[in-house]
C-alpha cells in the first residue's frame, strides 16, 4: 500500500490546484472585461489548456530543441545544430531503411484497412437477424490488449507449427515450397504485417463505418432505385459521397496509426534485416543508445511526414468529400 501513497496524495491535490487556477482565471478574465459566460467557459476548459501547454505544446517545442542537441539523459543537453539531421539523412544506414519500411507498411495496410472495414460494414448494414450479436463479435478484436494480440500473431506465424503455415500446406505442397519463415526471413516480413492488418479491419473501424452507413437517408437509395440504378452506381454516387467525411477520418487516423506501429513490432521481433519501424528506432536510439537528441530528430521527421501526408490528403478533399452543411446535389 505504501507504493500508492505518494501518487494518491498528488492525485488528490491535482484537481484542487486545477480548480483553484480555474477560479483565479475566472476572476482574472472578468477583470479584463470578459462577460460572465465567456469567462466561465474558458475556466471550464482551462484544465485541458493547462495539460496541453505543459504536456503537448512545451514538449513539442522542447523536442524540437532536443533534436538540435546531443543529450544522454545524464548530462546537460549539448547544442549541436543540424548535425543530428545531417547524420540521419546522409550517414545513418538504418534511417532511410526505416522510413521506407514504415511508409511501405502504411501504404499496404491503409487501403486494406479502410476498404476492408468499409466492405465489412456494408455487409453488416444489410438487414440480417442478430445484427447486434455480429456487431459485438466484430468489435471484439479491439478488446484484446495489444500485447496479447502481438503474441498470438507470433504463434500464428510460427514457421514450424503455426496455424498459418498449416493452412497453407496444400498450396505449399503444390508448388513444392518450404514453410515460410515469416519473421525470420526479411522477404516475408512486410507480407506478414499486411496479413496482420487484415485483423485490424475489424474492431473500431468497421463499427464506425457501420454507423456512418446507417446515417445515410434511405430515401436517397429509394429514389435511385426508382431510376433503376445499379448496385455499383448506388454505391459510388450515393454511399461514398454521403460517408466521405468518415472515410476521410478513417484515412487520416489509419495513416497515423500505421506510421506509429510499435507494440506489435516489439513483441514479434522481426529480423532486423527487414529494417525497423520508425517508432522502434526512436525508442532504441533514445533509451537503449541514450542518444535522445537523435531520437527527437527522428520523431520530428516522423511528425513532418504525418503532417505532410495529412495535408496532401486534405488537399484532395474538395474533389470527393461532401459536407452535409454545404448542401449536396
Amino acid at each position: 500500500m505504501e507504493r500508492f501513497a505518494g501518487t494518491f496524495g498528488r492525485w488528490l491535490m491535482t484537481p484542487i490546484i486545477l480548480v483553484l487556477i480555474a477560479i483565479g482565471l475566472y476572476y482574472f478574465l472578468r477583470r479584463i472585461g470578459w462577460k460572465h459566460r465567456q469567462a466561465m467557459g474558458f475556466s471550464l476548459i482551462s484544465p485541458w489548456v493547462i495539460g496541453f501547454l505543459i504536456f503537448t505544446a512545451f514538449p513539442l517545442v522542447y523536442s524540437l530543441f532536443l533534436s538540435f542537441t546531443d543529450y544522454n539523459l545524464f548530462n546537460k543537453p549539448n547544442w549541436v545544430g543540424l548535425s543530428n539531421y545531417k547524420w540521419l539523412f546522409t550517414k545513418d544506414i538504418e534511417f532511410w531503411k526505416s522510413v521506407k519500411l514504415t511508409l511501405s507498411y502504411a501504404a499496404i495496410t491503409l487501403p486494406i484497412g479502410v476498404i476492408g472495414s468499409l466492405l465489412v460494414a456494408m455487409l453488416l448494414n444489410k438487414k440480417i437477424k442478430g445484427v447486434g450479436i455480429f456487431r459485438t463479435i466484430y468489435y471484439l478484436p479491439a478488446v484484446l490488449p495489444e500485447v496479447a494480440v502481438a503474441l498470438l500473431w507470433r504463434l500464428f506465424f510460427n514457421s514450424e507449427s503455426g496455424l498459418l503455415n498449416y493452412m497453407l500446406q496444400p498450396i505449399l505442397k503444390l508448388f513444392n515450397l518450404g514453410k515460410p519463415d515469416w519473421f525470420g526471413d526479411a522477404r516475408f516480413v512486410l507480407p506478414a504485417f499486411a496479413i496482420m492488418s487484415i485483423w485490424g479491419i475489424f474492431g473500431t473501424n468497421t463499427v464506425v463505418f457501420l454507423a456512418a452507413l446507417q446515417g445515410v437517408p434511405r430515401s436517397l437509395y429509394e429514389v435511385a432505385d426508382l431510376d433503376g440504378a445499379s448496385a455499383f452506381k448506388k454505391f459510388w454516387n450515393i454511399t461514398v459521397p454521403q460517408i466521405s467525411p468518415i472515410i476521410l477520418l478513417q484515412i487520416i487516423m489509419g495513416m497515423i496509426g500505421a506510421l506509429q506501429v510499435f507494440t506489435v513490432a516489439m513483441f514479434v521481433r522481426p529480423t532486423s534485416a527487414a529494417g525497423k519501424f520508425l517508432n522502434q528506432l526512436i525508442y532504441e536510439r533514445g533509451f537503449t543508445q541514450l542518444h535522445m537528441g537523435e531520437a527527437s530528430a527522428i520523431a520530428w521527421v516522423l511528425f513532418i511526414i504525418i503532417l505532410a501526408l495529412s495535408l496532401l490528403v486534405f488537399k484532395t478533399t474538395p474533389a470527393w468529400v461532401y459536407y452535409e452543411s454545404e448542401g449536396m446535389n
Partner: protein
Amino acid sequence: MKKMLTGVLSLILVASILLSGCSNGKTGADNKKSEKKEKATIRLATWAGADEAKELQKIIDKLNESSELYKIEQDSNPADYDTRITTQLSGNGGLDIFWVSAQRASQLAAKGAMLDITDKLSSSDHPAADVSDYFEASLQPFKKDDKLYGLPWLEQPIVLYINEDLFKKAGVPIPDDSWNWDKFMDAAKKLTIDGNGKNAAESGFNAESAKQWGFTVNGWPPAQMFVWQNGGDVIAPDFSTSPIDSPEAMEAFKFYADLINGPVVPKQQIIRDRGFDTMFKDQQVAMFMGGAADNLENQVKFKCKVCEVPAGPSGQKATFGDVLGMGINAKTKNPDAAFAALLDLTDAIHHWKVMPPRKSLATMDEMNKLHPERSESMQAIINSLEYAKLYRYYENYPDWDNIFWTQLMDPIVNNHGDPEKLIPVVKPQLDEKLVRK
C-alpha cells in the same frame, strides 16, 4: 473583487507549498532516518529471474544480518532491464546499487551515472577491494580515465559443452588440446546424423532429414571469438578502426557463415522454434558453446563434459569472456552504506558464481572448495579464463554493436549473407561509429 483575488492567490500559494511539501516528504523522512544512525536501506536492482532471485535473497539475508551499516532490499526485474535502470538512474528513483552488464557499465560510467569508487577502494582493506587481485580485463568496462566506477562479480569464459554419449555412439574421440577448427568441423560432421543414420561426412547424406546436428549457432557464440582465434580483431586496440576486412577476420567470418549454412548446424527456423539450448538438452545437438556459468553438465540427463573451445587454425586460443558487475548510483543518498553493501555483495557473489574475476579465487583449490560438483570441469574453465577476451567496450559501444549485428551478423545468420560482400560495405559504417562521439 480585490479581496476575492487576493484570497484566491493566497490559496494557490498555500496549495503549491503543500504540493512541494508532499514531494519532499519522502526525503525528509529519509534524512530523519540517517540521523538516527539506523541501518540505511540500500536498494539493489538486478535482472534475476524467479529462481536466481531466490538464491540471491538467501545471500542478501545473511549479509543483512551481519551488517550494521546497511539493509539490502532486492528488486529483481528481468524484463527490459537496461531500459529500466537507465530510467531509474536518470531519475531520482532512489536506486542505490545495481547489477550491470559490461556493455552498459562502460556506457553509464562514461555518462557519470555511476559513482566513482576509486578512492573508496584504495582506502578499504576489504578483500574484494583489492584492485590488483582482479583480472585486468574484467575491470576494463568499469574504468574511465583510470578511475573505477564499479566492480565485476563474474567473468565467465565460453566453453564447449559436449554430449559424451553421442560422441561415443558416433565413435568420435573427446576433444583434446590439439583441437582446432579443422578437427572441430570433422567431429561436427561425424556427429550430424540424418534420418537414415548417415553422417555428414559420408556420401549420400541427406541434410533435409537430419535428426541430430553436431553443433548449433544463432549469432551465439559471437563471431568475434572466431576472429580472435584466427589472429584478427573487430575493433583496433586504439579504437581507430574496425579491421573486419583483414584477411584473418574475413576467414573467420567465412568459417562462421559456412557453419551456419552448412549441414552441421540446424536451420535457424528450427533453432528458433525448438529453443537454442533446449536442443542441446534434448540431445538433438552434440556440441554447445555456452558460458562457464551455465553449468550445463549438471543440468542434463546425459554424460556431459566441459572442454575448452577449439583453437584457431594456427593453434591460437581465444574465447569470449562475459563480464557482469555492479555499480553504485551516482545520485545515491547513502554512498558509504552503498559502498559497504557493494563490497560485501560482490565478494559474496564471487563465492557463489562461476567464475570470480579474482586471481586469488580463480584457482583449482578455491574452485574445488566452492564448487565441488564441477571439479571435473574446473580445469577447462580455469584454462579458458587465461585467454578470455572481452569486447572493446567504449562509451558508444551499443551504437557500434547495433551496426555490427544488424548490418553484418544478422544477414549472415538469418539471411545467408555473404561475408565477402557484406564486410567491405559494413566496415566504413562501423568506423563511423567509432569516430562519432
